[in-house]
């Protein structure tokens, strides 16, 4: 395709329409308000396939009708979309489509919002000449536990299959058979289980793919759509809730190119069913039972006053306004500097400020145009799923070069040009080496540095957890410098934090050493120091807002101890859990379908969470709870509503100064991009050269060489010298080094959610083939790992000497094994796998 961009004029139906050379005629027509019917065209799915033939138009000078979805615009093109010839073609395509379609609209979930219905009505011949038998399939059947497929309704537009091939690249959903026997299916009729499968129900233009969670729940005329932001993970995808009788019945994408590209992961799509779980905290609770709000707030105020300043707070899942109010209560009402919003250690405020510099920050859309992408210390599929799709797209469509540097094999390895595996605990060491290797030194990181050196626009997607290691964040800034990020437009760092609104909470002031806007402040204790202080008695009281340390924070035993030692624990929580069980007062949190507030995307985009569904009767807006609590503690915040809270936030946070609610609107606003942002970059995106996509597609595994990074011989390193494979090797006593990761599906979103329950992960220990052989293990064997029972899982790509286990699972949570340093584990075999 030619490097597009030139403005041209074309004529459609006798009208001149401006267009961009090279764009598809269909798009140009749409912009010129000419509607051309279509089924298969969907630019998000990659190149047009021209399969449905619905979009045929007449182009002067070409004898045959052409598909407007696949015809690039040229200057002076004269197009007709309403001639007799075109009408005949449209009539016949609709007639053909209905030859095999059951026309069971009255009982079809898609009825009323079905493109096939609309197009048949608008462009079809209006009557059918077909009297022959249609094709029959068993219907509907289970494509997966979440999605039903009715193959009789399918019009074989291939959208779903292309999604699986070209977007999620799981390649599980395929066309089986040929011709009119073709059907959409999976290998050996197994369920389609992949983290993004729900998207296929959004893009299917007929009622062939429907959600079990929505089947027969509502009809288009008795629902409303309410836009909000999903805050289940830091991706903060834009969603639209389908609401009926004030309850959420469905979640669909609200397509924000800047954030999610119009896709959702299944956690975000189906997670809403946990809103109504029996475990939901629906009213204030004191130890011993439900109480009125009056009693609860009295008890809380009393408990906090009694602490006499020996109080700390940790925020987790909270809006900016909630975080802002919480830190005000701590600092200004209770006189305590001890507040944090991170599950574990993190960089100091001065480093955070440098990381927040707009000129080293990347926005999500920069990934699309990046020349090289470094995924560092995170597996986006698990920690920010939507970015996994974004990186794949950059490789597939833009030919971006990917480098993966992680402890654990990632879902993106197959598309990587170079991969580095460092041992758990070696991130800081590795990143340091990487910075100097990019700068020209020859060291362990050289093989991967080569792809990044002089690469042009480099986007680094890095996991917050690498910064638990001292010096890692500083080294990351050295990488930024070595790749000239600050002077390269479209290059930058993009953090994937551990919690959903981490950036917003930090910027709102929920940090031990920085106040609102990352301002200087009296230093307080960080999360781990708070824990130790509770144990030692230096602190007596703890406020947890949307945080569940017993599940989510490292070192569960220490947290158990801390919570037990505390005199008074106040927990704001959406659900009952182990932490609420140990709390003195539990107050209900709103869900993201109920809450009103703003959150800040990891790239700095302020987004608005809007109330879409009704709250349970005794759940009240959390900002009101907090401001009332402040009043009770003698602090008048002047906040009595979301607008006043937002005003107070933007006044206090310099980065947000002057941002108006309307500017955020439905699409959000990056504070770095707003008008008058002092430190914001001014550069606009240059349209990239847009070279042709690489011939090979990234779902063909690339077999990137994996370089094993030698452990740092000094502190915290892995034992043993001269590892045979070049990787960390087994300690002399046969112990293995433990690496952990947060599994996508671990947590309440699967456990408390009937439709997703089947995805609830169980603990397993991923082990290399070498170690498995040595320990005589095979996949499926039951083992015990330092007291935790798990299933062994032999993985080719796991380096020898290391094992990986999941955090956040309900049984055998690996957080219980972590203690802030490297952890060696012993593996005992319990039972053979049953064949």
């Amino acid at each position, binding site marked *: 395709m030619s490097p597009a961009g030139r403005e041209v004029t074309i004529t459609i139906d006798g009208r001149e329409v401006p267009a961009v050379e090279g764009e598809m005629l269909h798009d140009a027509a749409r912009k010129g308000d000419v509607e051309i019917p279509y089924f298969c065209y969907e630019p998000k799915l990659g190149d*047009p*396939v*021209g*399969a*449905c*033939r*619905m979009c*045929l138009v007449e182009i002067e000078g070409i004898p*045959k*009708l052409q*598909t407007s979805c*696949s015809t690039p615009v040229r200057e002076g093109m004269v197009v007709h979309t309403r001639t007799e010839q075109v009408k*005949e*073609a449209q009539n*016949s*395509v609709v*007639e*053909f*489509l209905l*030859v*095999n379609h059951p026309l069971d609209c009255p009982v079809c979930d898609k009825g009323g919002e079905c493109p096939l219905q609309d197009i048949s009505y608008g462009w079809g011949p209006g009557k059918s*000449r*077909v009297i*022959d*038998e249609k094709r029959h399939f068993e219907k509907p059947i289970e494509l997966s536990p979440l999605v039903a497929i009715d193959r009789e309704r399918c*019009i*074989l537009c*291939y959208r779903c299959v292309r999604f699986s091939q070209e977007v999620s690249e799981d390649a599980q959903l395929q*066309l089986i058979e*040929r*011709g*009119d*026997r*073709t059907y959409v299916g999976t290998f050996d009729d197994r369920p389609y289980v992949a983290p993004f499968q729900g998207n296929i129900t959004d893009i299917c233009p007929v009622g062939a793919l429907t959600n079990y969670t929505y089947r027969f729940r509502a009809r288009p005329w008795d629902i409303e759509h309410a836009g909000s932001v999903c805050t289940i993970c830091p991706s903060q995808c834009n969603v639209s809730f389908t609401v009926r009788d004030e309850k959420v019945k469905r979640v669909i994408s609200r397509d924000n190119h800047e954030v999610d590209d119009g896709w959702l992961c299944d956690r975000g799509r189906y997670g809403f069913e946990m809103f109504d779980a029996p475990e939901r905290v629906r009213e204030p609770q004191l130890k011993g039972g439900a109480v009125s709000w009056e009693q609860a707030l009295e008890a809380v105020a009393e408990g906090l006053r009694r602490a006499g300043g020996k109080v700390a707070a940790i925020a987790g899942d909270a809006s900016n306004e909630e975080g802002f109010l919480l830190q005000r209560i701590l600092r200004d009402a209770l006189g305590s500097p001890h507040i944090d919003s991170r599950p574990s250690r993190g960089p100091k405020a001065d480093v955070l400020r440098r990381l927040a510099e707009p000129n080293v920050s990347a926005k999500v859309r920069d990934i699309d145009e990046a020349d090289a992408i470094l995924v560092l210390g995170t597996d986006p599929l698990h920690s920010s799923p939507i970015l996994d799709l974004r990186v794949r797209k950059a490789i597939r469509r833009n030919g971006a070069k990917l480098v993966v540097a992680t402890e654990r094999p990632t879902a993106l390895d197959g598309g990587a040009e170079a991969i580095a595996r460092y041992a758990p605990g070696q991130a800081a060491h590795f990143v340091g080496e990487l910075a100097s290797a990019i700068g020209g030194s020859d060291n362990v990181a050289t093989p991967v540095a080569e792809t990044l050196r002089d690469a042009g626009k480099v986007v680094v997607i890095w996991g917050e957890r690498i910064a638990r290691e001292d010096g890692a964040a500083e080294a990351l800034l050295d990488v930024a410098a070595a790749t000239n990020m600050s002077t390269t437009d479209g290059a930058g760092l993009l953090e994937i934090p551990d919690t959903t609104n981490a950036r917003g909470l930090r910027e709102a002031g929920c940090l031990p050493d920085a106040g609102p806007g990352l301002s200087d402040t009296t230093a307080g204790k960080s999360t781990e120091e708070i824990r130790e202080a509770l144990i030692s008695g230096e602190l007596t009281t703890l406020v947890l807002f949307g945080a569940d340390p017993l599940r989510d924070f490292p070192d569960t035993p220490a947290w158990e101890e801390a919570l037990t030692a505390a005199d008074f624990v106040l927990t704001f929580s959406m659900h009952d859990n182990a932490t609420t069980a140990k709390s003195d007062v539990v107050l209900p949190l709103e869900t993201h379908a109920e809450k009103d507030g703003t959150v800040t995307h990891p790239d700095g985009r302020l987004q608005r969470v809007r109330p879409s569904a009704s709250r349970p009767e005794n759940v009240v807006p959390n900002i009101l709870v907090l401001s009332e609590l402040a009043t009770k503690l003698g602090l008048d915040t002047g906040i009595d509503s979301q607008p006043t809270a937002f005003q107070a936030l933007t006044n206090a946070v310099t980065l947000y100064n002057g941002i108006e609610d309307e500017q955020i609107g439905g699409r959000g606003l990056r504070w770095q991009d707003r008008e008058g942002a002092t430190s914001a970059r001014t550069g606009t995106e240059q349209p990239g050269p847009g070279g*042709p996509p*690489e*011939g*090979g597609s990234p779902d063909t595994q690339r077999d990137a060489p994996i370089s094993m990074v030698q452990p740092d011989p000094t502190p915290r390193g892995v034992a043993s010298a001269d590892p045979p494979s070049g990787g960390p090797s087994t300690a002399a006593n046969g112990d293995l080094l433990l690496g952990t990761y947060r599994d996508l599906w671990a947590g309440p979103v699967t456990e408390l959610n009937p439709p997703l329950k089947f995805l609830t992960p169980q603990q397993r220990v991923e082990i290399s083939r070498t170690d498995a052989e040595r320990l005589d293990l095979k996949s499926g064997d039951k083992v015990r790992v330092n007291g935790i029972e798990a299933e062994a899982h032999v993985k080719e790509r796991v380096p020898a000497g290391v094992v990986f286990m999941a955090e956040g699972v309900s049984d055998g949570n690996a957080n219980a094994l972590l203690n802030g340093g490297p952890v060696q584990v012993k593996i005992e075999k319990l039972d053979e796998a049953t064949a």
Partner: protein
Amino acid sequence: MAHRLEKRVLLEHAEDPDLRTLDGYRRLAGGYETLERAYKEMEQDEVLQELEDSGLRGRGGAGFSMGKKASFLPRGDMAKYLCCNADESEPGAFKDRELMQRNPHQLIEGIAIAALAADAGHAFIFIRGEYDEQADILDAAVAEAYEAGYLGTNILGCHRDLELVVHRGAGAYICGEETALLDALEGKRGNPRLKPPFPAVQGLYGGPTLINNVETLSNVPHIVRRGAEWFKGFGTEQSPGTKVVSVSGGVRKPGNYEVELGIPTRELIYDLAGGPEEGHEIKAFFPGGSSSPVLKAEEGLDLPYSFEAMAEAGSMLGSGSIIVCDDRVSIPHLALRTARFYHHESCGKCVPCREGTNWTVKMLERMVRGEATPMDLDIVSSVQQNIIGHCLCVLGDSMAMPVGAMVRKFREEFEEVMANPDLVLDPHAVVQGAPETLGAST
């Protein structure tokens, strides 16, 4: 001995089984001398020019100038490819089978020389999976050619490389369509691609790709050896050269006959293929495989057998395969057989072809069962019209054209069959030694 009407160039010496071996090919046909000369003495442009000048038209169906197509490939050092289309799956066509079976080295030499013209470093022969025997023969011949240094790296010390892979399909007519062939060769389902981009610009693995039929490529060594002028000495002005014509159906001597293009069709069918069985007459014939609109005997027998004459008569020469229907063949049943084939082979990617072939078959089935009315005949006709020109590739048209022509030209026969299906005692017309059981009244 070849018949006087035959002009054997591609099939010269083909009766000798030795021709299949490298030695035999060298001895009998001067094999690989042209390749040697081309590689050692000729530039890409010279070869290209010779091919263009010859006027050689593609023998795979579309009849496009081979030299011109090769000249469309962009220059530059990107990887370029050559694909030999040996998928031959169109009903009535079996000439490529004969050429590969009897003279595999001629094809290999042609490919190697064409690769020079296309500047391709990698060539593939995509052969239909059913032609297992022929694929084995090709495999052996390719191995011999590698051994002798005609393929591989640094061919004959000329610093040129060519890898040649025989790739077996697995049973799908659509893979003969050039872009579907590319998808199949890339390991995917054989679905046609949108054009443009044309394969010459963006084909296999996204690189410029020249795709030619077996017979087209088999002509190449002869043209380069003896020159474009020599080649143009055969055939007509617009259809130069000889053509291997497959004749089958209701004739006494079905088989492949190599003739100069432009010979009277009647001579091909009567003098070479022996004409109809004793006591029967020719009712109609497909002049260019099952995709070509049928011609009634009186319309077609006296036409010269050339691309232009067939096009003028509203049909086409296609792959050059004549299927003869004698007076026992029931045209409605023939239409159904034809439609069934395309229905079975439709890849299913685009709607008009997938559903149009399906619907047509269902309607024709009703007709021969006597469950249709003349209105259905109109619907069948209009459905064929609705398919033509609306599909992603021309497979749909390939059914719609012949079926449409049959309904148009033999309407009364359809009406008769619809009214009296029982009159057709055995719709499975048996030509050889079968009782007189055919067509209602024709």
